[in-house]
């Protein structure tokens, strides 16, 4: 393994930071969901890199479970977005304030 695990973790941190930035600045709930996917995948990269470093499969199992959770999250998130669009609500995360007000 000529490329050390620290480089993989560094890439994973950069991707996570980009995803976090996207969650903060974008207003379309769809793109917020895409950015969350980005963050989940960067965590998967770190898990798999450390799994390789430890020489065990445990981190890969964790990554597999994260994939399942991410798929569930996409289903619920997209279901909410479609339900919002059906009710003719504006797809804008800044206008979704029913729980705050």
């Amino acid at each position, binding site marked *: 393994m000529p490329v050390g695990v620290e480089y993989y973790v560094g890439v994973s941190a950069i991707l*996570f930071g980009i995803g976090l930035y996207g969650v903060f600045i974008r207003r379309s709930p769809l793109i917020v969901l895409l950015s969350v996917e980005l963050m989940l995948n960067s965590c998967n990269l770190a898990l798999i890199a450390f799994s390789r470093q430890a020489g065990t499969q445990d981190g890969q199992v964790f990554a597999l479970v994260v994939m399942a959770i991410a798929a569930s999250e996409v289903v619920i998130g997209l279901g909410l977005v479609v339900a919002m669009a059906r009710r003719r609500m504006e797809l804008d995360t800044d206008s979704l304030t029913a729980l705050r007000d």
Partner: protein
Amino acid sequence: MSDLIGAGTAETIVFIAATALAIASALGVVLSGNPFRSALWLILNLVSLATFYLLLNADFLAAAQVIVYAGAVMIMFLFVIAYLGGAADEPSRDTPIWQLAAALIAGGALVVEVVLAITSHEFGGAPDVASNFGSAEAVSVPLFGRYLLGFEVASVVLLVAAVGGVVLGARRPAPRGPDEAEPFTEQVKHPEPELQTLVMGAETTFPVHHVPPKEGGG
């Protein structure tokens, strides 16, 4: 390739290319104005992450990443974006500058934190692993052994998400005004036999509310 420049150098080149691709496509996801383009950029990002997984000997996860993620999940995303059409576009308003700054600080702080953490620690070389490390067979041993509970919980979560998706996506009748009559009441209460046969098949020609008489009068 490895004959010419050595396996280690080849791996480094692949790593650098995948890094460039991953970061460029991640920026594409976040900065692209069109949700459809964002989703396509995310597919590229997922594929470059699968390259990393291959470099890390996680063959099965690389395949699962491409098939499940870049295939199934992203297709679902693209379907929803296409279904929403223009409604999916970004609301056209400028982001306040303080929000941009806060987002940059939050994202950047995390990156700096992790970089500091990994540079202050000596990891050393990774151990050599068997050639079947990361194959489906090798991953299945801990998955169905030590982490069986987590696997089962994940399956329940997926089931709940599937039911939730159906509930959220189901069409409900539009809400009625207070003076509007309840639609189809008569038909539901006293269904016409012919109509019911037409709609539901011959087995249900008796009215739905009809209780068959008990056998033998008992």
